[in-house]
Every structure is written in C-alpha cells, then in structure tokens.
C-alpha cells in the first residue's frame, strides 16, 4: 500500500492508479463473506474458486473478492460474477469448478445455481433482476457487494473518501451541517432525531478544554437484527468517512466506535480499516494536509443491551458500570468524560458520505416528506427470503414482506410483523399498507427502531411473543430504576400466568395498568419502550389474551400448558415413527395397531405431531 497522502491531489492520483490496475482484470468474482454466508461455508467456496483459478492460470485476469454481506442471506453462500452480474445462490465448494468452467472461461450460465422464484418457477440470471434486489434501493448496501472490507483500495476506487475531500476543502462546518439538514437525515438508531439538530447543539456547546467527542453506536442488540453489523463488517470505511466529516462539522478531535464483542468480524475489519486509513493519512494529524486532525478508537463492549442507550454507552466507554443516567443536561453539552459529545448510529454515519458526495437535494428526493433516504431492515422470521433489505422510506410493509420477502414461508397465513426490536410493537395484517416511516410506525403503536423486522405466521402465539420480549428485556434491564426492574418482573409473572392458563381477567387489567406506568415513569428509553410489545399485542390481538384466560386455549398451539396431543385411532397406521421419536416414551402401542399417548408422561414437545405423515396426531 502507498504511504501517507498529503493532499486531495495525491488521493485523486492514487485513486486513478488503483482504477487502472483494476481494469486489467476481465472479470471479478464476488463471494459474499457476511456472517450468514460464513455459517454456510463461504470460506471454503472462496478457497475452492481461488484454487481453481490458480490451476487454470487465470489469477491475473480474474479477481476474487471476499466481500461483506450482500443481503440475500436465505440463499447463501452467494457468488456474483461481474461485469455480467450473474448471481449464483446456495453455492457449495464443489460447484467452484463448473462455475469457472462455464461462466468465467466460457460465457454460459448454470441454470441449477440460479435463483428460482418459487411462486412463478422462473429463473433469474442477473442479480439486479431478482425480485429480492430489484425492489430495493441500495444506497448503502450496494457497495457491500463490490468491495473487500479489508482493503482500503477497493473503497477508494469506488469514489471513497471523495466526500471527505469535498467536506474538508470545499465546505465550512456550517455548510456541512446545513447540507445534512437539507437532506433531512434522521437518526437511524431508532428514535429518528434530526441529525443536523444534534450536530448543531454539539457544535454550539462550549468545551472547557476544546475537546469534543463523536461516537458511533454499534451496540446493536435487538434479537434478529444485524444491519449495523453487516455495514461495519462489509463497509467500515463508509462509517469512518462519515465520522471524520461529522467530526469536522462539529469540531471534535476524537471519536470512538462502541461495538460489542459478539461481533468479532466487525471489530477485526474495523480495526484493519482504521489502521489503513491512518497509514494513508486519512485519519490522524493533519488529514490530507487540511490542518484538521482527528482519530478514532474502538471500544469493545461486553454486549449488554442497555449499553446501546447513550448515557449507558458513555459510562461503559469510561469504564464505569453501563447504566443510564437522567439526561436533563444533554450529552451534546456534557457527555463522555463530561465533554460535549455527539452520538450517532452506524447507519446514520454511513449515510453522511453519500449526502455530501451526491448532494443533499438528490438525497432528499428519496423517501417521504418527514423521513428521507433509505432504511436498512433485517427481514427475518417466517418469511421466504430472509436477509438484509434496504428500501426507500415510505414503502409499505406489504411490499417489503410480500414483494421483496417473497411472502410467507411454508404457505402459512400471515399474522403479524414486529418492527423495532424488543421495544417495538406487533403490527397486524389490517395495517400492512402502512408506509414505513418514523411517524407512521409510531402511530400504529410500534416504532422504526434500529431496523429489525420479524414476520410471524399463524403458528405464532402473540401472548407468547409478548412474554418472550418481556423476558428478554427483564434479563437486559440494568435494574437501576424501580418501574423497569420491578415492573418488568411483575409483567413477566402475569404473562407467565396467562400462558399457563392460571390468569384471571383482573390480571389482564393489571397488566395494562402496569405497562402504562412502566412506559411513563421509567428512567431511560429501555424501560419507556419495554411495554410496547405487550401494549401493541393487547391492542391488536386482545382476543388471544381472552382465549388464554377464559377458554384456556392457545389457538397457535404454542403454549404448552394449554394444549394436549392425542392420536386419532382411525388415521393412525401404527408405523411406530412417533413412538420411536418420543423422547419420554409417552407414545404407547404396537406395530400396525393404533397408538395412543400417555398424557401423564407427555411433555408436549410436539415431535410426534411433526413426524406423523398421516395427520393422525392431533393438537388440541
């Protein structure tokens, strides 16, 4: 790699030289190295492809890139061959040979490895034509598929750090803040606070020793959410560039990225990216000869959910217990080490270079009037195409779930979608045409949150879901304030009673009363939003609560204390399959004679129900 760059001209020349070297390669094979694909053995896929190229002496003509997450996690490992843009899904290491043979040496396509739409049976050859991608607007994620996160040259070749040059040499700090304001950027961490207002407050704040901090919140902890993780893993330089621009606008001298230790690849890629940026003079003293100095440190957290709260995060960086404090004095004035501090989420920072490079007007054209730009969601649960999707604000939930997500997996009926993580709410089918933006999601009793989107079908019990989230928050509450610590515990007791059929109607009233007090009186955002799953499920699915309480019935067949398994003697063929699988020996009977279940032994695990091919096991 090159030594330090001391002016924008140096950077430009360096970019040109990288681009011309890259032109030598006729084809680029991009192998997804996201966490999802890692679990599907993508490392070996890449090794096999590289080995195959070496053997055919193609290494100087064809480049293999191990990139960050492409997003289509359901279909991993993914391999894309550029410039044609051919997408191969579910690639196994043994496919490497024929991929090289037909699509790299030759120009044909392997039909079996293409993405096939289940509904229409149609094959899609190119990445951009696949419905999962074609309906998205991938401002941030597009680069994930093109760059090797461990190589800064890739990012620079894609016009990386050109926004930084524009900001440092052509704009004043006020102009940058103005630009972010016109773009209408709002915090992507969940609350949706206008980023420009935050920056203004921090710029205005007086620092006693001229030290201000900017922080990046990468303490993503929602179950089922991995947007920030994938951005940090796949494109750390976008976050770094955003932070440098933000630091210049605010007048900060030092930055921290607070990332949880459960994200080892993100930490590794980030540290490498910082080191490379420092070597090139893009970080540190006198950045690109502009006279502006700024550096970023990485603070690895222990993984407590509450440390995503701004004051708890700052306490944790300082080495104190990660507990929130009251924020009547804003962190923009007294934050980390009691100095003016600005905290933004990973995705917010990654948006900044795009706004500066492409211009605020262009950015503001995307989205709705009050929520501009795009938002990344991690679409998970009972949906066919799980993965990371980036959509323009204002798109409806139905489009995300049914067009991009491909509808429900296993052909079951849609029941609800949970947005905003454990503090969000469950939205029923009747509200699926709600446009996704900060205001509308709050209106329907949920929230944007950091971008988790969990799709549920008819086999999900809404009371059980509420109980699951309350349980999660109970474990993750710091325990400082009474409503959150004691209130969530009591909410869990009541929900436990409901799912086991012991509850009374009075307890449901108490649950509502308690949930409202916890929401109104808790100290920090965790407690204030913790009752959302309970309140929203009561609002939209109150019937299910009443069924559990009055009829002692769980319609989804999830709550163990309310269901019973029986064998229909007419349908049972006596195949012994359920008997062999039952872990507690509760299924009795002989070969070719109808079986029956000893209810005193039955643990209600449902294995017999799952394995029976004749529909003879009944769940009541």
């Amino acid at each position: 790699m090159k030594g330090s760059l001391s002016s924008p001209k140096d950077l430009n020349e360096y970019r040109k030289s990288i681009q011309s070297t890259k032109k030598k390669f006729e084809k680029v094979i991009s192998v997804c190295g996201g966490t999802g694909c890692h679990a599907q053995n993508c490392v070996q896929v890449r090794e096999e492809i590289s080995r195959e190229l070496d053997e055919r002496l193609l290494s100087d003509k064809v480049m293999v890139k191990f990139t960050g997450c492409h997003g289509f996690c359901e279909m991993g490992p993914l391999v894309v061959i550029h410039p044609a843009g051919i997408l191969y899904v579910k690639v196994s290491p043994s496919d490497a040979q024929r991929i090289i043979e037909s699509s790299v040496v030759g120009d044909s396509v392997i039909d079996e490895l293409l993405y096939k739409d289940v509904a229409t049976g149609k094959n899609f050859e190119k990445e951009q034509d696949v419905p999962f991608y074609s309906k998205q607007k991938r401002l941030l994620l597009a680069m994930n598929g093109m760059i090797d996160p461990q190589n800064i040259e890739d990012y620079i070749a894609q016009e990386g750090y050109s926004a930084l040059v524009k900001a440092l040499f052509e704009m004043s700090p006020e102009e940058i803040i103005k630009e972010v304001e016109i773009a209408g950027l709002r915090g992507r961490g969940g609350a949706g606070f206008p980023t420009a207002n935050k920056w203004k407050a921090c710029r205005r704040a007086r620092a006693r020793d001229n030290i201000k901090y900017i922080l990046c919140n990468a303490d993503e902890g929602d179950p089922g959410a991995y947007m920030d993780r994938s951005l940090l893993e796949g494109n750390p330089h976008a976050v770094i560039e955003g932070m440098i621009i933000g630091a210049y606008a605010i007048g900060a001298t030092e930055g921290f990225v607070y990332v949880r230790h459960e994200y080892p690849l993100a930490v590794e890629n980030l540290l490498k990216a910082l080191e490379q940026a420092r070597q090139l003079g893009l970080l540190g003293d006198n950045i690109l000869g502009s006279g502006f100095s700024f550096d970023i440190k990485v603070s690895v957290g222990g993984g407590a959910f509450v440390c995503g709260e701004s004051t708890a995060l700052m306490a944790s960086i300082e080495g104190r217990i990660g507990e929130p404090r009251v924020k009547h004095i804003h962190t923009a004035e007294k934050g980390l080490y009691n100095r003016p501090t600005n905290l933004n989420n990973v995705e917010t920072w990654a948006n900044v270079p795009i706004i500066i490079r492409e211009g605020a007007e262009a950015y503001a054209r995307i989205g709705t009037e009050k929520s501009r730009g795009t938002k990344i969601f991690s679409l998970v649960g009972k949906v066919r195409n799980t993965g990371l999707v980036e959509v323009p604000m204002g798109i409806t939930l139905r489009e995300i779930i049914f067009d991009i997500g491909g509808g429900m997996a296993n052909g079951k009926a849609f029941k609800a979608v949970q947005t905003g993580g454990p503090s969000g709410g469950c939205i029923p089918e009747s509200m699926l045409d709600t446009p996704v933006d900060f205001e509308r999601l709050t209106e329907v009793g949920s929230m944007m949150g950091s971008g988790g989107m969990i799709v549920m079908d008819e086999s999900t019990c809404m009371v059980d879901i509420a109980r699951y989230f309350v349980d999660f928050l109970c474990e993750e509450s710091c325990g400082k304030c009474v409503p959150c610590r004691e209130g969530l515990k009591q909410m869990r007791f009541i929900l436990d009673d409901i799912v086991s059929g012991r509850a009374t109607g009075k307890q449901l009233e108490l649950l509502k009363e308690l949930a409202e007090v916890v929401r109104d009186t808790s100290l920090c955002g965790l407690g204030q939003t913790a009752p959302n799953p309970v309140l929203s499920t009561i609002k939209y699915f109150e019937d299910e609560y009443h069924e559990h309480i009055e009829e002692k019935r769980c319609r989804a067949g999830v709550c163990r204390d309310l269901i019973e398994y029986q064998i229909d003697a007419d349908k049972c063929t006596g195949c012994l399959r359920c008997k062999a699988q039952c872990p507690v020996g509760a299924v009795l009977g002989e070969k070719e004679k109808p079986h029956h279940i000893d209810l005193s032994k039955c643990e209600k695990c449902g294995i017999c129900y799952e394995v029976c091919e004749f529909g003879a096991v009944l769940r009541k």
Partner: protein
Amino acid sequence: MVNLIIDGQHVQAEEGWTILETARYYGIDTIPTLCYREGLTTDSSCRLCVVEIISRGRSRLSASCSYPVQEGIEVRTNSRRVRQARKIIIELLLASCPNSKTLQCLASQYGIKELRFKVEDRGCILCGLCVRMCKEQMQAGAIGFFNRGVDRRVAMPFHVRSDVCRECGACLYICPVCELQCRGPREPGDLCNGCFEAIRIDPFPSRD
C-alpha cells in the same frame, strides 16, 4: 430567576434548582421521595417523586428530583395521573419489601387496599442511599451494587468484609427499609392500612 407554575401557584426559582427543591422551598409537600436525600448525589432511581410536567401543550411524567426548572412550565405534583403512577410504584416496592414501615405508611397514604403483585421478599428496595452515603459522606465506598436487572443487589466486593468499612452504621441509619418492621401485617403481602384508618382523611387531596 425562572418563572413556573406548581399546582396552580406561580413561583420563582433560581436557575439550576430542581422541581423538587422548588416545591419544597414553597412548602408544597406532596412529593414523596425514597432515593433522594439532601447532601447526596441524585440517582433518580425510585421514580416515586414523579410529577406531571406540562410544557408546550404536552404533558409527561418525570422525576422531580432531577428535573431542572424551566421557564413557563406547569407542574402538577399530585394529579390523578401522578397518583396512579405512584400507587403502582409503591405496590411494586411493597412486593419486594413487604414489611417495611416506610412503604406500609406510603401505601396507607395512597389508599392502597390490596397488594396485587406477586410478593418476593428481598428486604431491600435498592434505592442506593447506603451506597451513596458510604461513598460520598463517609468517604469509604465499602459497598456497591453488583449483578444486573432483577438480580441487582447491594453488597461488599466479593461478599467479603471490606477493610474500608469502619462500621460507622451510616448505611443503617439512612436505609428507608431496615428499620423496625411494621407491626400491622402478619403475612408478607398483608397491608396494614392502620394509618389510613386512623387518619380517615386523604392527606393529599387530588387537585384535579
């Protein structure tokens, strides 16, 4: 000076005063506190001192012990919404510390006739007064919090008697619950309501 309204009275406060300080300065004594004590830092953890704050046409509940006064806000220290929230908080605290006299008296004052939550007696409400007293006034720091969430407890490091503890007893002195147990209830979860019967009038009539 900052001008604001507390329970219908127009009052003036010094910049930097909290709502609680201002209310008490003016003799408005309807805000109960547990984790707040003059001379110690403010933790705002018990949330018993919540008041309704109306500003720019919006009403919300906030802990008065740490909320600095602001020009033009209206504060209601004893509205129905406030009393309802405090009631639940007292009930929650009683469920974790059923025989505390302080809490039993508060329950009487707030007309709590039955304890609707599951009782798990821990003998401590985790207000943290002892921890702050030991550290801030006695300059010792012999005790602190450990664990998180529902498992949070006050203890000495590693549960071993600390060398810095001088057995001064300040932690016992300041504790709102390790006092003589309330004589009233027999079983954990029973409510005494003795004061309620004796007083017979609502000491904090609602101003709604």
